[in-house]
């Protein structure tokens, strides 16, 4: 299968967006959804074909001397301003792009299929706006695919904005709900703010290195990640500094801020929990599996540059490690299951970020020891597995919400009896995220922990602790939904497993979550295209499994059956519990900053100045003109004879003056 089919993979969702968006309204709702699913199925098959050809095929330049190469399938110039300022729109297939193609199309296909059931009522009738929903899903899929195959950083930026836009549209899908509108505005504004930094970073980077293209920034002559290329790009930038740091450090930090906005790193994470106002399948696709990892992808794409610019990498490390802990701490107390999952997502993405950051061990640059670049591989591995099991968890949550019509877990409880399939799938997801072998999460998380321990014992212990918290909060949610106490039927019909359109994706994703850990990532996805030799580090693996089991055990003791223990513990640490439940007051903090400081302190005086002084002056001029003209309009009597009379007197006066002048 030719790799150039990647173009089709990217273009097909765009065509579907146009088709469904323009023609969909004329067709029935269901048929639109079915067309969307079928198109996505074709797209997925193609994407798998491309990925398999890339990884296991040969003869298309993907493998040279045992080094995996990026294959540029197409790279036409899109905007050509000057010789150096050329913006290209291309399609590039390299390990992470091929991996992302698989992730995106898989999850997207599952979500397309699932939405057939989810976006319908219990009688199977599709909701209002069904066509719009599918069109936006296709738009999102296109944007995300375009992002991962980008050949240059500007293309990434464009698609960054487009995924932000489709995210905005889908969060606000129920646009009649005020909460959805607030949430999509919040998401858009926060990510826009971050994207501003991203754009700044791009401008600085391209100004000093004279290029947008990755092949001049990070790809070596063999079109795989190369420190030499990155070094020469940095050398091109020269020793320019700003505020004591090199411009490259600034540029890369700004680019990371852009990625942090999309990937919901602290303190730009506030939009993600609110984004759960959107339909649950959307949360699964955009806010769990694909869009939120765009930031990780971005850093991974520029990985060689980050390796050489330690300052930026350290920021990523600190932010990532903190966010992982912070979000996990919040996830432990949330009562809204989607929000708990959202914080879990933030925590897991922070894992990936940290993993990327730890792999740039300064020592690794000097002595190339075994395991160099491990963090990069682990991060991508975790991205892959996380996308699968987090999509699974979200889709399960969607099935539950669809059944009980509530997001709050005190409306659930004891659903295991009613929804056994969902329960088992959710359990598989929980086991995967908790890191229990042989489920997917174990393998990827283990690699991350190994990388963290290689960086330093402190980082390793910290990340292990967060992994334990992960196990705890996931099983807390699981028990609170499916056990705890007998379910009280609130609605007139008892909750039950959902129709096959919704259950099938769950089962497929559960199967993937079980086996995804066995994908040989270490010789497929590495930063420099070379095979990485790893071995299961039994010490790390053993401790991490032990910690995960501890977390699960604690959750089992506390939440398996209804008991007063959680309440007692919450009371014992009331302050901490409340702070965590209120998400450590970050929203209140932003509210304070924006409302009290920016609005009241800056905007209100400016608005006052604008209205009173600027507008006031203009209004005064208008009023003055008005009143003067009202005063003198009597002169416009409409009597031509009066005009002539006045004119004549004026002429006579002039003549008299002239005469007097001549006389004198």
């Amino acid at each position, binding site marked *: 299968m030719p790799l150039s089919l990647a173009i089709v993979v990217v273009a097909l969702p765009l065509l579907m967006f146009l088709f469904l968006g323009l023609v969909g309204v004329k067709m029935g709702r269901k048929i639109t959804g079915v067309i969307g699913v079928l198109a996505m199925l074709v797209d997925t098959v193609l994407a798998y074909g491309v990925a398999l050809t890339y990884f296991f095929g040969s003869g298309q330049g993907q493998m040279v001397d045992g080094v995996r190469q990026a294959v540029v399938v197409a790279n036409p110039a899109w905007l050509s301003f000057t010789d150096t300022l050329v913006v290209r729109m291309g399609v590039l297939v390299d390990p992470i792009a091929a991996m992302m193609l698989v992730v995106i199309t898989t999850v997207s296909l599952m979500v397309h299929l699932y939405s057939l059931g989810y976006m319908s009522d219990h009688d199977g009738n599709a909701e209002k706006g069904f066509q719009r929903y599918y069109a936006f899903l296709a738009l999102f899929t296109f944007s995300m695919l375009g992002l991962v195959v980008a050949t240059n950083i500007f293309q990434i930026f464009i698609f960054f904005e487009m995924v932000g836009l489709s995210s905005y549209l889908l969060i606000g899908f129920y646009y009649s709900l005020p909460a959805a509108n607030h949430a999509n505005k919040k998401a858009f504004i926060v990510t826009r703010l971050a994207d501003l930094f991203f754009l700044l970073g791009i401008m600085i980077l391209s100004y000093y290195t004279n290029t947008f293209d990755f092949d001049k920034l990070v790809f070596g002559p063999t079109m795989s990640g190369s420190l030499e290329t990155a070094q020469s790009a940095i050398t091109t930038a020269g020793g320019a500094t700003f505020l004591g740091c090199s411009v490259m450090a600034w540029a890369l930090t700004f680019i990371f801020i852009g990625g942090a906005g999309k990937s919901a790193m602290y303190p730009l994470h506030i939009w993600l929990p609110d984004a759960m106002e959107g339909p649950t399948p959307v949360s699964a696709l955009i806010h769990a599996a694909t869009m939120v990892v765009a930031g990780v992808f971005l850093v991974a794409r520029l990985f060689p540059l980050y390796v050489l610019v330690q300052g930026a990498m350290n920021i990523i490390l600190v932010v990532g490690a903190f966010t992982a802990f912070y979000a996990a701490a919040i996830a432990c107390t949330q009562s809204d299951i989607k929000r708990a999952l959202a914080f879990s997502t933030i925590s897991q993405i922070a894992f990936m970020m940290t993993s990327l950051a730890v792999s740039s061990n300064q020592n690794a640059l000097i002595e190339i020891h075994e395991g160099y670049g491990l963090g990069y591989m682990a991060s991508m591995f975790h991205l892959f597995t996380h996308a699968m099991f987090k999509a699974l968890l979200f889709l399960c949550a969607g099935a539950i919400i669809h059944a009980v019509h509530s997001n709050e877990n005190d409306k659930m409880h004891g659903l295991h009896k009613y929804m056994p399939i969902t329960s088992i799938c959710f359990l598989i997801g929980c086991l995967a995220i908790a890191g229990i072998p042989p489920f997917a999460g174990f393998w990827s998380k283990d690699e991350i922990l190994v990388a963290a321990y290689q960086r330093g014992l402190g980082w390793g212990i910290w990340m292990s602790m967060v992994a334990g918290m992960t196990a705890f909060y996931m099983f807390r949610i699981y028990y609170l939904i499916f056990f705890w106490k007998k379910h009280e039927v609130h609605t007139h019909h008892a909750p039950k497993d959902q129709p096959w359109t919704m259950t099938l994706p769950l089962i497929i994703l559960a199967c993937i979550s079980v086996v995804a850990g066995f994908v040989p990532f270490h010789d497929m996805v590495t930063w420099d295209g070379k095979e990485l030799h790893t071995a299961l580090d039994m010490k790390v693996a053993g401790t991490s499994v032990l910690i995960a089991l501890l977390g699960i055990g604690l959750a089992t003791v506390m939440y398996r059956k209804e008991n007063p223990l959680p309440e007692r513990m919450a009371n014992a640490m009331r302050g901490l519990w409340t702070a965590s439940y209120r998400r450590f007051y970050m929203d209140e903090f932003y509210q304070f900053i924006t409302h009290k400081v920016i609005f009241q302190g800056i905007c209100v005086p400016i608005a006052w100045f604008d209205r009173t002084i600027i507008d006031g002056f203009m209004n005064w001029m208008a009023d003055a003109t008005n009143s003067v003209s009202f005063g003198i*309009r009597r002169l*416009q*009597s*409409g*009597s*031509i*004879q009066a005009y*002539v*009379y006045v004119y*004549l007197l004026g002429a006579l006066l002039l003549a008299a003056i002239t005469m007097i002048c001549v006389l004198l």
Partner: protein
Amino acid sequence: MDLTLFMYLIPSLIMFGCGVYGFITRKNMIAIMISLELMLNSVDINFVVFNRYLFPGQMDGMFFSLFAIAIAAAETALALAIIINVFRIAKNVDINQITKLKF
């Protein structure tokens, strides 16, 4: 007795004065047009006599009068067309009654 330039200017001046008086006092729009013609005519006379007395070798004044007559004809035709049209609408040619366009 000599016929000086002055002697031709006096009737012209009086004719002009009459035109002014008529223009300001008359109410009928056609009468106002007639007054206008008086004024134009007095100007024509001035052109001609100035030309004849002061620059006898040239013909500019005469040509100015010629063109003024042509323009006066055009202007009168148009003005009368307007007046008749106004009369059709307002049933009146009294200039004091037709004040719709003011303000």
